[in-house]
């Protein structure tokens, strides 16, 4: 059984409380809004890509600690990287969070391994991957993405009633 408390580690609680790169950017080169319709959470991601490199990135939104920390750590991880490097990281993060790859098999994942535990919590996976979906949407000029989209790897509703 998952150790749930390990998910709420210091680093996640800290990024939740003091999110980095929080806000919006005027004139971003890429922008997207991500929704998790099941819990009403939504975040925006603004990116400035200049000559293939992410010069600036910011996010904003209403969400749980897992989502907010994931967004905050995403911004610090991809800032300064090339778009290709960021896209590789997106794929690794999605694979790790959905349990397809263990974090040991994600060469670029680094500190983001703190999110590995969500793969045992099907209802929380979406919280962790929403920012990454949204960044992916921004890169691919999809203005609005949803964790309920058809291609979503975790297309399973949270309980009812």
């Amino acid at each position: 059984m998952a150790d749930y408390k390990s998910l709420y580690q210091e680093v996640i609680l800290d990024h939740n409380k003091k999110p980095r790169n929080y806000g919006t950017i005027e004139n971003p080169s890429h922008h997207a809004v991500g929704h998790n319709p099941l819990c009403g959470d939504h975040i925006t991601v603004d990116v400035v890509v200049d000559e293939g490199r992410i010069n600036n990135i910011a996010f904003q939104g209403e969400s749980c600690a897992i989502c907010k920390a994931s967004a905050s750590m995403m911004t610090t991880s991809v800032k300064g990287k090339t778009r290709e490097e960021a896209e590789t990281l997106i794929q690794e993060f999605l694979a790790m969070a959905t349990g397809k790859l263990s974090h040991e098999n994600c060469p670029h994942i680094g500190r983001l391994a703190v999110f590995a535990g969500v793969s045992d919590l099907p209802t929380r996976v979406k919280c962790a991957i929403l920012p990454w979906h949204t960044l992916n949407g921004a890169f691919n000029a999809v203005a609005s993405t949803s964790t309920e989209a058809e291609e979503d790897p975790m297309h399973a509703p949270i309980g009812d009633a």
Partner: protein
Amino acid sequence: MSANQTTQKTRSASAFDVERIRADFPILKLKVNDKPLVYLDNAASSQMPQQVIDRLVYYQTKQHANIHRGVHYLSEVATSEFEEARRKLQRFINANEDREVIFTSGTTEAINLVMHGYGRKFIGAGDEIILTTLEHHANIVPWQMLAEEKGAKIRVVPINDAGELLIDEYEKLFNDRTKFVGVTHVSNALGSINPIKEMIAFAHARGVPVLVDGAQAAPHTKVDVQDLNCDFYAFSGHKLCGPTGIGILYGRAALLESMQPFKGGGDMILSVTFEKTTYNTIPHKFEAGTPPISAAIGLGAAVDYLSAIGMDAIAAHELDLLKYATGQISSIAGVRVMGTAEHKAAVLSFAVDGVHPHDIGTLLNQEGIAVRTGHHCAQPVMQRLHVPATSRASFAFYNTMDEVDALIAGIRTVQKIFT
């Protein structure tokens, strides 16, 4: 009286033998994350006592066959047990006749049945349907589908900050285009108990039929459809210590007879030729195909079980739990209770400052405590309260004051982690 005695009293005002009742529920002995399970998600689905589990096993091992078809022994036994279950449900809600009790797959299907059977026949362009802000999506979406198809209009009764319907506003919504009212007896998100008897009387004085969504009321209060004088009353077996896949639509016989069938197939017909089909009488007209026979019989056993304890005793114990929990939770700084209606069922929706409901749900689960977090399929309520989601503890008669204490301790732990 010493302070200690006073607390004892507020913790347990009735002589309800909850430990004896808990012994009937095998699932309550589970451990979750090495902690005793504290199951506080009863509004979503309640647990099943051994008596109901045994009844299902007995049916499946000694009585199963298809019903209303064969002349052989098992078919006759199954048919008679199925129809006996219908009579148990009839008595449980005090319906006038057993043919007014239709087995459906649940509340959702019951409401859809009324939408198709009554709505599509009797509601047309420009007509108005009154619903309330407190409705579960199950009592909103079918009517929106109908309104879209027919060009009808939906009017919504607002609520105050406490989560109570504004009855003046309800009355003002009526006009000569009003054709139907759908109202929940008890709000699943906030626990508010609505004054449905008065609302029904008001609608009837204007010739308007009323459907009551009783999904959250039937498990917690005595329901008397004749006293309420409602036209339709819908509820689900799985919230009533019964199986999933079964529910009830009560309908006034004359109305049911005037309605068109919902689903076509076997059992709902008297005769079929390719030229013409004659529909069966009620309730069979609305029970096409092989029904969930075992689930219906299990539900019959569940209402027997609840009736033996007594719905009044159940309601009293749950009210004790609610009062105690509300008092305790209100004493925690930074916690806000949503839904403070004067008349409430044992539902406690709350928000913890600075902590998202999903984080609360995950961390309480760590303590073995099951609560529901999210919008509770009642997004209009959430919008009205300006929150995306809440955490909800919902109590059943088998919950204890100690479990309330566990919830309160769990919330304090969550706060500690987040400070």
